[in-house]
């Protein structure tokens, strides 16, 4: 009789690990399946020319590169290029001097992605003196 009672006795504070781990894995599965990877955001800094600068500026500084972003693509120093060619030229330029001021001119009908692409290439090459003009 005494032996039987000993078998039945349970400790009230005993931790049921198996059930707990089971629940923990259920929760883990739920969160892994339901979570969506977050987009990683980045910022591209630009400078807008001040109004005073526009009126007084008559001649461009010698180390200035002009990139035009239009609806159909890009032009560097008034020569139409693709993004790959633009990348190549800016990489070559960035390798020689990083003090070059880059003036990015965007036409009104150009897609915003075009400007972002040019800014991205400049960030890649290490050109930091960037100004954006709108046409």
């Amino acid at each position: 009789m005494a032996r039987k009672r000993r078998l039945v006795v349970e400790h009230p504070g005993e931790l049921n690990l198996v059930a707990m781990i089971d629940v923990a894995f259920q929760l883990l599965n739920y969160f892994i399946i339901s979570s969506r990877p977050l987009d990683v955001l980045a910022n591209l800094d630009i400078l807008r020319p001040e109004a005073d600068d526009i009126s007084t500026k008559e001649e461009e500084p010698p180390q200035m590169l002009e990139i035009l972003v239009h609806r159909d693509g890009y032009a560097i120093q008034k020569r139409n290029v693709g993004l790959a060619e633009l990348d190549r030229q800016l990489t070559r330029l960035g390798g020689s001097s990083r003090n070059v001021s880059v003036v990015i001119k965007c036409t009104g009908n150009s897609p915003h992605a075009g400007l972002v692409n040019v800014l991205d290439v400049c960030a890649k090459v290490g050109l930091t003196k960037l100004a954006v003009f709108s046409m």
Partner: protein
Amino acid sequence: MRKREDESLGGALIAMIDVVFQIIIFFVCTANLQDSGRDPRIQLAVAPHAQLVIKKDPREIVVDVDSHGSVTIARTPLSSGQLLHVLRKATAEYGRDVPVIVRADGRASHEMVRQIMDASAAAGIWRIKISALKEKGG
């Protein structure tokens, strides 16, 4: 005596694990909240080499432009006059170095982005940040 110690230890452990799970659930649920302010219709252009956003300035003004060219702040559509008013108020309150972040859809025309830049310039803000996707999540 030994048994009582074990029991109290087990009880404390259960409570601790319970609290740990509550904390985990809290962090998992709130992790996406900072993303909820973003308009899901806006598809940012990808710029893998752009500077990563690590620290956020609490003064920053995020101006959204969707693919159709409508300008919104915190999902509130604004006319160019209203935008200028908001930016002027911000500069009066926080100074001219208040960060303006343009979060424009990659397909939007530059004309709309230009309006934001012009409004910023009219409010005395010359430094503008253009938001892009460094890495696309899913």
